[in-house]
């Protein structure tokens, strides 16, 4: 983001830390240490989360995703293998010291009912022994950051807040001491779907400002695709089925389990990851308000419809070329404004939905100031999906380097 942006200078200067699982196995029960005991909750898990990225662990219940997460802050100790943060084996760090450097958000939030919101948020800074003044200003800064009024909520108790507000406070509490790593276990699971969508967007915005490395556990593949820079799909028995950016997962599922898990609508899900800016737009026949019809028709050639633009290049609407009489000039009265309008940031999924619902089936793409830049049709959307779906032959070979940046570009 902006490393020298104001207000977040201290936070933005901090970088997330890398997190690495190195052949991590966890067995529970008697004899676990000798390789006996119950079947593995996590089996030979190896993956690397680069600094500053959001890695989503997703899978059905019993796949070991929460167990894996808890091995990062040593609430669970691995039976075999190591977890490393920034290259350091965390088993060499005292658990309480380690945990104070790692943000932790759980589904039930776990706010302390007997402490005010301000005291809750101040938890880790207090444990770290920050001076009172610094804690106080940090609490107010965080409450503002998550969109709550510090004066209004600082001295209230958790029971006095709504579910969505409590969830935000839980995230603020986890971020309080600017941890380089955050662990989130079903963080948006306890709120209704509308609030969940809003909280997810808020968190993505916060994450862009903070650059913390995030490991997030969910059972919801849509949440995984939306939130993850990388997604680790785990399957029963604690096996990692695939670890890849979301677009890669959707385009090239590694096995049947992954394909079933991401769902038969994975084409639509991929469209949600792509924006209008990424596709090759069509050129529409255009004309300016006030232009003589004759010259407009001459330029439009075969086109049945002409897009009428105002003097600043903003679209007024479509005119039917065949209904125009060659005499006179074009005026905006003739234009049909019912065409959907997109910006480069519109996702292809939204664009497709609007195109299907509109009578015109050709959308107009405009830039930030509303000026025409191109036209988007169903064919363009289809071509984009096919273009990205069909993998180059070498990508089918197991182990070949894929395109690790897909997930970034898509967001």
């Amino acid at each position, binding site marked *: 983001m902006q490393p020298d942006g104001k207000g977040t200078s201290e936070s933005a200067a901090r970088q997330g830390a890398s997190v690495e699982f190195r052949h991590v196995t966890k067995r529970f029960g008697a004899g676990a240490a000798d390789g006996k005991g119950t079947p593995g909750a996590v089996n030979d898990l190896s993956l690397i989360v680069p600094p500053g990225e959001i890695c989503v662990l997703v899978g059905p219940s019993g796949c070991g995703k929460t167990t894996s997460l808890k091995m990062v802050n040593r*609430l669970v100790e691995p039976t075999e293998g190591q977890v490393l943060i920034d290259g350091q084996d965390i088993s060499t760090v005292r658990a309480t010291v380690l945990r104070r450097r790692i943000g932790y958000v759980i589904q*039930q939030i*776990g706010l*302390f009912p*007997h402490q005010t919101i301000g005291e809750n948020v101040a*938890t*880790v800074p207090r444990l770290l022994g920050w001076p009172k003044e610094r804690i106080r200003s940090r609490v107010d800064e965080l409450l503002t950051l998550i969109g709550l009024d510090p004066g209004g909520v600082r001295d209230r108790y958790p*029971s006095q*807040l709504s579910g969505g507000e409590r969830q935000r406070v839980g995230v603020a509490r*986890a971020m309080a001491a600017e941890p380089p790593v955050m662990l989130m276990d079903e963080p948006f699971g306890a709120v209704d779907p509308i609030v969940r969508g809003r909280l997810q967007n808020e968190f993505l915005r916060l994450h862009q400002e903070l650059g913390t490395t995030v490991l997030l556990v969910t059972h919801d593949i849509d949440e995984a695709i939306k939130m993850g820079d990388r997604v680790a799909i785990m399957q029963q028995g604690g096996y990692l089925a695939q670890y890849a950016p979301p677009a890669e997962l959707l385009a090239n599922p590694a096995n049947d389990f992954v394909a079933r898990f991401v769902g038969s609508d994975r084409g639509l899900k991929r469209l949600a990851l792509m924006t209008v800016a990424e596709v090759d737009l069509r050129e529409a026949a255009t004309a300016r308000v006030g232009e003589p019809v004759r010259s407009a028709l001459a330029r439009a050639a075969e086109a049945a419809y002409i897009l009428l633009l105002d003097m600043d290049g903003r679209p007024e609407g479509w005119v039917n070329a065949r209904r125009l009489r060659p005499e006179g000039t074009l005026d905006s009265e003739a234009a049909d404004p019912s065409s959907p309008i997109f910006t480069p940031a519109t996702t292809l999924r939204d664009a497709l939905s609007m195109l299907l619902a509109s009578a015109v089936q050709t959308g107009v793409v405009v830039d930030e100031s509303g000026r025409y830049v191109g036209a988007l049709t169903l064919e363009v959307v289809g071509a984009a999906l096919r273009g990205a779906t069909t993998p180059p032959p070498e990508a089918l070979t197991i182990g070949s380097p894929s395109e690790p940046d897909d997930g970034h570009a898509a967001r």
Partner: protein
Amino acid sequence: MTPGEPLIRWDWIARNLDAIGQRIAEHVVLTGIAVGIGLLISFALSIWIVRQPRWYGPVTWVTGILYTIPSLALFALLIPFTGLSLLTAEIGLIGYTLLILIRNIVSGIQSVPADVREAALGMGYTQRQVLWQVELPLALAVIIAGVRIATVTTIGLTTVTALIGQGGLGYFILEGIQRFFSTPLIVGAVLSVTLAILVDGALVLVQRWLTPWTSARS
């Protein structure tokens, strides 16, 4: 009762105000020592039980037996060892508080939601910090509820300690029975009940003051 005698002779009360005040003070002290020491013992045992849950059964079994021994019998059994002393009285009274207090302290700590405990550990609290800063504050309402029951029970039981010469309001009750004289008997009983009600109310206020979050509503 002697025939023709009124139920209450107010002039007796007026003449014995000093003695009444003294007996109330004795009663409060006897109860206070019993509940105070009972709380200390129960607290230590409870912390131990929370860490070693397999001892919960044996401890409640022993304190439960203690709780069921009739108080008169208990004092009688203790006299050969500790005599007609304050110690005898307090051993009995303290013994009766343990079951109630231990049960409430343990269940108060166990009622702390698992997610709150996990969040505390996950953020880097030590076990000791979890106990003192999270579990005990959250258990406080249940603990004080236990203290209320134990205190009210002890105020009632303390009337019996007059039998072994330790004073308290039971002295009047005993005097009333021995002299077939209803006034001191009624005075002792009514004051004992009143004291229980007042102390119970005071403890409710203490609980509200110590746990402001339980009454906070938006």
